[in-house]
């Protein structure tokens, strides 16, 4: 399928923005700043549109097409958000935000005890000895120790009687369990780090594929040349600034 001029122009802009934003990793420059602000502008405009679209489809449509006048309530509460621009009457906006917050928080509070606590605790009650399966038995013992240790570390943050220098039996047990929690978390964070690498590399692969694609490669080369000039210019400005500062310092010290 042949691309229209607008499509080709779009691909060139996309390639240029990609290269220019990457240039920040090497040195901040004017093309980076331009792309960054262009992105922020489009992103804010996009957010505005999508907000409007959702309100129109789920808030205004029921009133207009189904005559459901009760939907005027959320529209009024939503409009109160704009009260924040009214100076001394900015508190009006609080009614809107309290309405939204009230709904969001309530529906989370209703199910959180079951979803986040009861189910999780129930899933932690594991058989510690499984006949004929030593690996699973050890796994379960480790899991239970790590969970108890983690809960002690995060939730029950008091330290029972005794100190590191004069430990009581309770303190020793507490300390050992907390260590299990900490070591368990280290394993968790190790896995998190490894998985972060995969995600970031995947994002990078996505962009490189686009830049190396047949439609974008020409734009990529031009954008790289332009950004090299911009980075060179930024270095020159920095040196000039440095030299001027050094000159001014010499002048001050000689006077």
């Amino acid at each position, binding site marked *: 399928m042949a691309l229209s001029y607008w499509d080709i122009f779009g691909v060139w802009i996309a390639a240029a923005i990609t290269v220019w934003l990457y240039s920040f990793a090497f040195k901040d420059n004017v093309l980076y700043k331009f792309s960054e602000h262009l992105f922020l502008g489009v992103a804010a405009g996009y957010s505005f549109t999508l907000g409007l679209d959702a309100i129109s489809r789920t808030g205004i449509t029921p009133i207009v097409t189904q005559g459901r006048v009760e939907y005027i309530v959320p529209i009024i509460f939503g409009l109160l958000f704009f009260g924040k621009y009214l100076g001394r009457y900015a508190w009006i906006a609080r009614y809107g935000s309290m309405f939204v917050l009230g709904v969001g928080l309530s529906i989370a509070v209703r199910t959180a005890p079951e979803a986040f606590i009861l*189910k999780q605790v129930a899933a932690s009650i594991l058989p510690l000895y499984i006949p004929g399966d030593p690996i699973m038995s050890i796994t379960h013992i480790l899991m239970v120790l790590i969970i108890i240790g983690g809960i002690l570390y995060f939730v029950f943050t008091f330290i029972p009687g005794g100190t590191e220098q004069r430990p009581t039996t309770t303190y020793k047990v507490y300390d050992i369990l907390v260590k299990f929690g900490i070591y368990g978390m280290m394993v968790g964070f190790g896995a*998190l780090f490894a998985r972060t690498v995969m995600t970031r590399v995947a994002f990078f692969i996505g962009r490189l594929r686009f830049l190396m694609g047949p439609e974008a490669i020409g734009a990529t080369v031009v954008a790289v040349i332009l950004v090299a000039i911009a980075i060179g210019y930024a270095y020159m400005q920095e040196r000039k600034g440095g030299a001027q500062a050094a000159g001014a310092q010499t002048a001050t010290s000689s006077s």
Partner: protein
Amino acid sequence: MSAAEKIYNILSTRQLLYVLLIIMVLIPLLHPFGIPISISSRVKAVYEYIEKLPDHPKVLIEIYYEPAAATELEPGLGAILRHLVKKHPKLVFVSLIATGPIMFESLKRYVPDVFKQLKYGEDYVYLGFLTGGEAACASLARGIKEFVPKDNYGNPTANMPIFKYADKAKDFDLVIIVSSGTDVFEWYVRQWYTPYHVPLLFVALSVIAPSIEPFVSAGQAIGMVVGQRGAAEYELLVGKPGSAMAAMDAQSFAHGLIITFIILGNIFYWIIRLQKKQAPAR
């Protein structure tokens, strides 16, 4: 300055590390090596679960990711859709993130073969982006048609045949949450699994996976397809290797480089540290 310190300083140059990384990702992209991968028990379990779903399953698919995450999540979702479509499903797509509509159009371009087999309004529908996060998630469970009178393209949902079968939470056989953030998994666990016990399947970014692992482990989700690797495995299972499989070589090279950086960084750190300890004694 010792030789170790000199080498360490050279290798510490940020720009050098960056250029090395670009080269290591570019080489396998330009010249794929086709290094094999194994299929994990995890992805296989998800595949078997979908295989066992009844014919015409009703599935809600939450598209909750941004353009950056498409490289990791789109192949996984694409492979699952290729698998699901064989069962003639009823698919309701929705987004609780503003970038959803962009990503849905991108998904249609990514798996055109799947969407060719489905009729809009009858077999699938896209509800578009809905505001309110968890409140929208809870409202969907109570009746989609009533909550969203118009779909993403402005079509009225009232007369769409798909909603005869898939309207309320209890109608659905599965919810697939494809997300680049943790919050939406929590919303669906709280608003779809906890009150209605609808089975959830997580398709998550690699970096998100550890944080949602407890939900899978507690049985609040039937399984998880994680990142590009999980997607590549699913592509192999459905017999259509795609972009995730093609990225595996580049992933291997980049991971190899980062592992080398970590090991070298530590070797030089300890050499320099030991040299400094010995220095006053001399």
